[in-house]
């Protein structure tokens, strides 16, 4: 006996095997990302006022990447539609565009966005010493405006060896605009465009610092969740790209010649996975970039 319903749907359930399989798999993926997002909710609810950073990611770049993923979602469904209409050349073009989008997304994420964070520095000041750094934090001003306090001084670290050398007693930071000019009302809310650190150097004594690090996963709960969720999401994008590459190989062409419906089913299943990856990003984008 051969395994039935690999291509043609079973009558009483109305679906073919892989369709059930992929939806079950996506159900488990919902729970996987559900666990991570619930961790995000848990940690964010638990964070005190001013402990959750805002506006530290590059919004235009994130918007661009969101658009890239949405476009790839459209092209993959068009690729499937082309196969259904037996337009093989068109299918290959759409597939190639989808792969290109996936690669662009990964390059932007791993080649630009993440490395930009590794070189950024943030020092969280001890609760008791906040007043000492009022000139960088501007908490009086924020209090008057009804905003949560700032507890962190960020920018580019001028003396990176200070992170490891216990003999160096202070951090020299090329301050971010928000710390260079903290009482400026324009700084109360995040910017749309990324603004690089200023020329102004701020000195922070290590003894006053609760915790300081580059913008790495270990920097804070925010970056821990950001890197973990976008990393896992990136791994999914990579997996999708690899599957789509397979769909362009000669083996798939041969399958098309023998049984086009089978290839269409495969593309549909891979497409469902890809849409799901897009769907996750639709939530990741506002949660980390905008809110």
């Amino acid at each position, binding site marked *: 006996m051969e395994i039935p319903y690999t291509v043609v749907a079973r009558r009483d359930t109305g679906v073919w095997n892989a369709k059930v399989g992929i939806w079950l798999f996506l159900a*488990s993926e919902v729970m996987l990302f559900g666990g*991570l997002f619930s961790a995000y909710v848990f940690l964010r609810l638990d964070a005190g006022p001013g402990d959750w950073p805002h506006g530290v990611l590059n919004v235009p770049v994130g918007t661009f990447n969101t658009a890239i993923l949405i476009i790839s979602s459209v092209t993959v469904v068009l690729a499937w539609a082309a196969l259904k209409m037996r337009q*093989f050349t068109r299918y290959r073009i759409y597939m190639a565009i989808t792969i290109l989008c996936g690669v662009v997304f990964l390059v932007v994420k791993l080649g630009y966005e993440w490395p930009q964070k590794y070189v950024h520095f943030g020092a969280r000041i001890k609760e008791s010493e906040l007043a000492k750094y009022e000139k960088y934090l501007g908490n009086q001003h924020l209090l008057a405006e009804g905003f949560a306090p700032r507890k962190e001084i960020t920018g580019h670290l001028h003396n990176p060896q200070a992170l490891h050398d216990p003999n160096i007693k202070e951090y020299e930071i090329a301050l971010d605009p928000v710390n260079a000019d903290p009482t400026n009302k324009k700084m109360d809310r995040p910017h749309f465009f990324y603004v690089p650190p200023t020329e102004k150097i701020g000195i922070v004594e290590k003894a006053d610092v609760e915790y300081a690090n580059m913008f790495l996963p270990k920097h804070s709960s925010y970056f821990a969740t950001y890197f973990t969720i976008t990393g896992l999401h990136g791994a999914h994008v990579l997996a999708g790209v690899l599957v789509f590459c397979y769909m362009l190989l000669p083996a798939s062409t041969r399958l098309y010649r023998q049984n086009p419906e089978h290839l269409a089913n495969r593309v549909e299943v891979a497409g469902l996975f890809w849409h799901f990856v897009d769907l996750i990003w639709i939530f990741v984008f506002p949660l980390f970039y905008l809110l």
Partner: protein
Amino acid sequence: MDTTTHVGAHAAHDPHPHGEHPHHELGFWRKYIFSTDHKVIGIQYGLCGLVFLFLGFSLMMMMRWQLAYPGQALPVIGKILNVFGPGSMPDGKMTPEFYNSLGAMHGTIMIFLGIVPVAFAAFGNFVVPLQIGAPDMTFPKINAASFWAFFVGGMIMLFSFFVPGGAAKTGWTAYTPLSIITDQGGTYDPVFNGQTLWLIAFIFLITSSLLGAVNFISTIIQLRAPGLTWMRLPFFVWAQFVTAFLLLLAFPPLESALIMQLMDRLAGTSFFLPSGLVVNGTPLHVSGGGSPLLWQHLFWFLGHPEVYVLILPAMGIVAEIIANNSRKPLWGYKSLVFAALVLGFLSFIVWAHHMWLTGMGTAVSAFFQTTTLIISIPSVIILSAFFISLWGGSIRFTVPMLFATAFLPMFGIGGLTGIPLAFNSADLYLHDTYYVIAHFHYIVAPGTIFGLFAGIYYWYPKATGRMMNEFWGKVHFWPSFICMNLIFLPMFLQGMLGMHRRWYDGGQGWTLAGDKVWGLSGFQWNQPISIAAWCMGLAQIPFIINFFWSMRHGKKAVSDNPWEATTLEWTAPNMPPHGNFVTPPVAYRGPYEYSLPGRDRDFTMQNEPIEPGEQVHHPSTEPVLHA
């Protein structure tokens, strides 16, 4: 440019769409090692799982020495055990670190490398496609991938015993922040240490379970034989179906939690590390802001459904065997099915009863106490249905039936002793004592493992064409049954005396303050328990010999249906070939049509057509709509 004209829609009906014809000649490696046949994969899972079960049990036998005779050198084998490294058994005496490793790995191996692979993956793989009349699983290659992911995970777990510092030592629950600061920094390798390898191995095991679960559910949905409607499925298939759903939806949150804990260990994040944590007098240099309770929530979100993952397949096996050996239809088939569904559903919303001591609020606590009590209802329905099925039957006490009937009171004891733990107030006293150990071991050891033994004896002829030896089966059963109770009954007493489950010295230091039961203090009870545990180990020898000896020399099965059962797997030839069935089976009736009136045989198989004028009366044969 388009090829529309060349390829018609009718190509879809080509019987061999891949151009792959059934391959008859496969080499040894493809046929027995890297096979995609569900039966071979099932047997691979079964053998690996049984080896791991014995290994996990051996770890416990070593721990029992330390509990009964704390600080004394383990005779004979103590010196050999130094292979586990200098920190394990110097002079044959067990170090506390090694004791902790054994405890953690006993739990992990028994649950995730022993029972889940045998109960779910082995029996599910071997039996379910046969019982639903399918040629194989829906995705044979994914099925093989599932096994190999499991195998790699298991090997990593074993390997972790031999890295510096030894295997994971923070319990099978790996509670944070202890599990994050253990084996961390200093001379420890960031990756090759017990805790990190535990996390990595676990991610492999979860991946394996997820692939398996997807395969099982889609197979049961898609590949049921014609006529095999949902209400005609054997209860075992239902049990596996619910189990697969539990794995599918409960494991991923734990996988996410494992990824987070791995980040905490490798990338220095603080998902589960609170602010201001001080270790050995030194403030921990981490960002903080995490929550140890988050780990517990995500862990137990899996952890509780996992309990039902362990028990449901065993219930399914027991149902098959009870119906077969009492020569009666299973009583209350529909109630059983719905009870299993409700059990699966409720198991997702009771998890915080493992966390009464974390100080959760009254509202949350009340919610979880209520759901925990409600979940006992479907369990009792299932157990009652099994008992009533025995009533008035012509019972044959075959070896599978011995194990299946022993399952009933054992599971009953395990279940009923869980009820006090469901109450926040009672649990404050009993939490983390030997009472809890006794309670859940009654469920999984004489419960599930007896179910597994029953299943092995029952389906052995289908897999090998030979029967296991009846006499040695009984020699296996009776000592096992007696020792199980000698091991676990006294633990209730120890627990109620207040003995904590993680004491390295078995409560020796505390024994002066303790009360006595039947002349023995909590600590002194360790000795009879330990002796019973070692006897239990000896009692498995007949099984092991019987298992391998019968493959070649066992009595040949009299037919393809030696137990005179009704379900579809018995219509397939023994040692079914690739593709399983000679002719595609069709089901005409319910799964348990034993002793139908007016027949010359006391069993009617599912593929026997309804005869003209036959009265169809059993609930499982009532006409039911398709899915």
